């Protein structure tokens, strides 16, 4: 009886362990969120192809908002990326107008005179995070999509799914995000079109500490949003720049 029990317990434990290992190893076909994010990200890129460009400075790719005020940049070679591997670059002027003191920005922010979508001389802000130092190998030349796939395949924890909005997202560190709709036709888990096909999300706290009045940033919405933190939904303040693509 005791041996029988031991066998049963061992079988159960083995099964759980095997499943856990499978889960941890990120078996691609079972990672529906990761795989789904690739498909839908590709769909976003296809929807606004003119806004997708290679970013030589950051050794990667950039997706610009339709009004060119902000870009999501992702590196294709983390060993060569100069500052961050995933990041947002955006026009600093509205923030300066809202009281930003660039000296007070934390280290993950960069403030500079930039080259924004072909025009020069603008003041820019960049915020992002370093994911690793990998030098990825690609089948052929890297593309915007295959560069993104590296995040899913190697840094799956940086990708998340925002259930209440039905959005995928890439975590840029410190509460900053780039999100896009799983399905731009039925944007929202309740199939309501929320006109938020892509959303640039900033954590307002460091900016507030750097002097801004968050409600006075032109082009950005200061709002409370629901975020999923390991299943726990929380209401937090964010600075948002949503765009409807379809």
């Amino acid at each position, binding site marked *: 009886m005791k041996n029988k029990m031991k066998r049963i317990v061992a079988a*159960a434990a083995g*099964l*759980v362990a095997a499943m*856990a290992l499978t889960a941890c190893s990120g*078996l691609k076909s079972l990672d529906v969120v990761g795989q789904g994010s690739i498909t839908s990200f590709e769909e976003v890129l296809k929807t606004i192809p003119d806004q997708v460009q290679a970013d030589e400075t950051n050794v990667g790719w950039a997706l610009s908002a339709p009004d060119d005020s902000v870009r999501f940049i992702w590196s294709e070679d983390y060993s060569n990326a100069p500052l961050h591997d995933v990041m947002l670059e955006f026009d600093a002027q509205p923030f300066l107008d809202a009281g930003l003191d660039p000296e007070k920005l934390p280290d993950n922010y960069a403030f500079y005179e930039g080259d924004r979508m072909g025009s020069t001389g603008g003041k820019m802000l960049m915020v992002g995070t370093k994911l690793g130092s990998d030098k990825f190998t690609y089948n052929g030349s890297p593309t915007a999509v295959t560069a993104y796939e590296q995040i899913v395949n190697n840094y799956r924890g940086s990708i998340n799914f925002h259930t209440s909005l039905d959005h995928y997202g890439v975590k840029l560190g410190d509460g900053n995000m780039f999100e896009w709709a799983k399905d731009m036709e039925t944007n929202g888990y309740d199939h309501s079109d929320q006109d938020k096909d892509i959303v640039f999300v900033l954590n307002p706290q460091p900016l507030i500490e750097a002097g801004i009045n968050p409600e006075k940033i032109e082009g950005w919405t200061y709002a409370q949003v629901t975020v999923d933190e390991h*299943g726990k939904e929380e209401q937090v303040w964010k600075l948002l720049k949503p765009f409807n693509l379809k």
Partner: protein
Amino acid sequence: MNSQVLSIRGMTCAACAQRIEKTVRKLSGIEQATVNLASEKLFVEYDESILPLTTIKQAVTKIGYEVVEKSESSNVTIPIGGMTCAACAQRVEKGIKKLPGVTSATVNFATEKAAVSYDPHQIRLSAIREAIEKAGYEALEVNKADAADEDRARKQKEIKVLWTKFTVSAVFALPLLYIAMVPMLIMYGIRLPYPKGLDPMNYPLIYALLQIVLVIPVIGVGYKFYTIGFKALIQRSPNMDSLIAIGTTAAILYSIYNTWLITQGEFKAVDSLYFETAGVIITLILLGKSLEAVSKGRTSEAIKKLMGLAPKTALIIQDGAEKEIPIDEVEIGDIIIVKPGAKIPVDGTVTEGHTSIDESMLTGESMPVDKKAGDPVYTASLNTTGMIQFKAEKVGSDTALAQIIKLVEDAQGSKAPIAAMADKVSGVFVPVVCIIALLAGVAWLIGSGGDVKFALTIFISVLVIACPCALGLATPTAIMVGTGKGAENGILIKGGEALETAHKINTIVFDKTGTITEGKPTVTDVLTTQDSPADYLLQMTASAEKSSEHPLGQAIVTGAQDKGLDLLKVDSFNSITGRGIEAVINGQTVLAGNRKLMDERSISLTVLETDSDRLAGEGKTPMYVAIDGELAGIVAVADVVKASSKGAIESLHRMGIEVAMITGDNRKTADAIAKQVGIDRVLAEVLPQDKSNEVKKLQGEGRKVAMVGDGINDAPALAQADIGIAIGSGTDVAMESADIVLMHSDLMDVPTAIDLSKKTIRNIKQNLFWAFGYNVVGIPIAAGVLHLFGGPLLNPMFAAAAMSLSSVSVLTNALRLKRFKAANQERRGA
């Protein structure tokens, strides 16, 4: 009309019992069909000329249950010596198979054993052994399977299987519950260790698939809920298993659908997985079933104890030598040796030797009884001192012990009228619950604006919380424990109806002679008129009465013998009918008799007139004795009151029961006895044939009457009374006529029996209250009635836990009766 007890396997709840009863009752030729869920037995009374038993069995089997008839055949394994090859085995097998009454025989050469099934009515085991010997082999000591042991082993196995199933289920259900619930606990600020790779938000498919993998073994061990439940549902007779099957299947199918949605990219569906609900429900029900099986086993412990009283072997004299044989091989006429310290194996009569035998298991008397040649001995009584030989007269099911066991078994399997309501409810319970679940689910689906998840929770909760088991177990378990406890105390209650009626009794009528009194007249006073000593008067009177057959005369003879007085030679003796006797002893004429005799012989009684009246007033019978025409004295004889009578009547008074005494004696004597023991009402000078009318008159006053008598001459009154209580040893024919048989001749068992009845009925009422109350409260809560008013919603897993606990709580309450203590238990040293 035939009656039969069939053991039924596969019943899981009261609805199953109801279904079997209904099916069998529909058969033409059925007089009565009662199913006892607790003992898993079907009692049928049927007309065999119209309805063969096989048809009844087929009807039960057809609706999905297994019939295990109390086997008419016996199974035996006979070790065989002398076989040298497979051909030997073949030869022995052929030899046994040829015998009439042998249904099957298999001889295994490797184990050197023959497994034989045979009808003991057609062939005896010894004949099978002879056939083996005749074939040229040696039939060694037989190992015959004992029915009680087999039953015990079967139940133990059942418990073991259930525990194993529960353990397997729990091993998979616990991680399933952990995986499913921990992410939800985060909502309440509780963070427990959890693998990131299983995060439902980011890895919903892995999260769902792992749950499927874990729930499969749980469903595997609980497969019977589905096979039995859906089968019953298809046959439009749903039972408890149907509720579990529907509830968990709904949960699993909905979860599988949501898993498919996840694969289609609907990640939100991860919030609508119910695999852990199904897994935990099955696990908890298995836990409940395991606990239920253990408790059910304990309810029949009394029978097991009784069965365990009989020895397994007997030492017989065969061919002039002592030989120990299994008890089943003992035949009528066998001479059996019983050594000191051994138990009597079967009923019989002592042929040689003398000893003292402890018959307390039958009579309750702790003092061993002397036995000599010609005295009866009973199975399971204990030989304490000498070695005796006795002739077997009753074996197997004919022994007194076997009859007692049968009586208790029948009682435990019977139903009390109080169970009728529970039976009716159980019969429609499951379909009604299914309808309530469906209505509640649909109502919430509409009311919540199409929230399928919420409606499903309600649907599953209602199905799972409803518990017909508790209803079905409420009455039979209490009756089993109550009647079993009675048997342990020597109180054989013949059925549920008797048990229920006994608690309503408000008047008890006691027969006087042999019930309140010892039933044997004894000499109480010897008064003399002359200087001669009392012993001389007693000696003369006893000598004169020696030839008398009158009970009073015999009492005087016994009284003299007890005092060691020698009886004198009687020269002549004359019995004067209705008056007394006349004898001549040593030339003296002795006249002994009543007042009429003395008056006719002109003998003056004046000297002892006052004493005579006093003795009569004390309930004693004064016998006048005259020697040579002169009054010599009075020898008073009386039937003395039993030691326990007064205490028993006081106990009954404390219970608020009026106590009456019925007797054929004259009023004066009856009143005297009544005064001694505290009787409220005396029914004197009643002829035996009128006793039942007196009981009827009391019943006419609206009283619930119990009659207590010795069960032979009081039989009509015992039958007329609402409850007939026979006092006497369990060997008496009293067992046939009474509703309750008190094996010990102790009147204290009467209040004990009433008390046991009251406590059992109270226990049944408690059980029914909890069983009904549980469902009445539980079902609306599960249906979301509280939630409607802002209250909590019941999680299906809690519903399953509550459902399992309801049966266990009913059984536990019934088992409390095992703590019942008889009023006279301490006195008996039990």
